[in-house]
C-alpha cells in the first residue's frame, strides 16, 4: 500500500491510514486500555511498517472503525463528496490498484465530456495469504497473541463458531423491532 501511495499521489490520489485497535493483543503490544496507550502504539506501527502515509488515530472506543464495519484490515476508496466508491474486507494492494485505475479513468472520461451514470457492482477479491508474515506480527505482539490465534484456528476448524453465529442471528431476529 505504501508503494501504491507513492505511485498514485502524483495523480492527486490521497492515502491515509486509520489506526484502530490491536486485533491480536499480547504481552508486548497489549490491548488499548487508554487513549494514551493507543497513541503510544501508533508510532510503533508507523516505524515497523515504514509508513509514509498520513496516519489518523481512531478514538478509544473505535467509533470510526466500527462505523466502517469493524473488520481488522479493510480498505475504502472515498470520493471528494465522501461517498464510498470501493470497499474491500481485506486490504490487497493489487485489488486497490485495479479500483484506482478504473476510478481515475472514469474521472478522465468525464473531463472529456463522457456521460457516465453510476451503477452498483461487486467483485470477489483474492489476496495473497502470507502466514509467515502474519505469525511474525503475532510473535512481536507476544506469545499470548500466538496462543490465542492458534486456539481460534482450532476452534474455526472444528466449526464451533458456526453455532455461535447461528444462535446470535436467531437472538437478533427474535428481538422485537
Amino acid at each position, binding site marked *: *500500500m505504501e508503494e501504491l501511495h507513492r505511485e498514485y499521489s502524483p495523480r492527486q*490520489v490521497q492515502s491515509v491510514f*486509520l489506526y484502530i485497535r490491536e486485533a491480536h493483543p499480547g504481552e508486548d503490544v497489549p490491548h488499548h486500555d487508554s487513549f494514551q496507550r493507543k497513541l503510544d502504539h501508533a508510532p510503533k506501527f508507523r516505524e515497523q511498517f515504514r509508513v509514509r502515509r*498520513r496516519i489518523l488515530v481512531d478514538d478509544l472506543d473505535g467509533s470510526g472503525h466500527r462505523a*466502517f464495519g469493524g473488520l481488522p484490515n479493510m*480498505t475504502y476508496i472515498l470520493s*471528494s463528496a465522501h461517498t464510498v*466508491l470501493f470497499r474491500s474486507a481485506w486490504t490487497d494492494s493489487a485489488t486497490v490498484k485495479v479500483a484506482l485505475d478504473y476510478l481515475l479513468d472514469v474521472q478522465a472520461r468525464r473531463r472529456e465530456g463522457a456521460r457516465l451514470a453510476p451503477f452498483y457492482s461487486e467483485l470477489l477479491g483474492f489476496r495473497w495469504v502470507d502466514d509467515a508474515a502474519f505469525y511474525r506480527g503475532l510473535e512481536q505482539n507476544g506469545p499470548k*497473541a500466538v496462543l490465542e490465534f492458534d486456539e481460534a484456528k482450532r476452534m474455526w476448524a472444528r466449526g464451533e463458531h458456526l453455532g455461535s*453465529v447461528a444462535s446470535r442471528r436467531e437472538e437478533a431476529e427474535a428481538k422485537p423491532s
Partner: protein
Amino acid sequence: MKAQGYNYSVFPPNDDVEAFAAWPEFLKAGHRAPDPQLLDLNSGAMVRLTEVTRDGLTVVELGSLT
C-alpha cells in the same frame, strides 16, 4: 467484541467471524461514508475525515500492528 468490549484483551474468535459475516451488507459502495473525528499523528490535531476527502479521491486503509 460484545462480551469483552471493543478493546478486548483476549482475541474473540466468534466475534471476528460474526463481523466478517455481517460486513457484506454494511456500508456498501454508493453510500455516504462515516465522518469520524480522528487524531492526526503528525500534527496532533483533531480532524474530521471529510476534511481529508474533500480534496479528492482518498484511499483509507484501517488496521493495526496485527
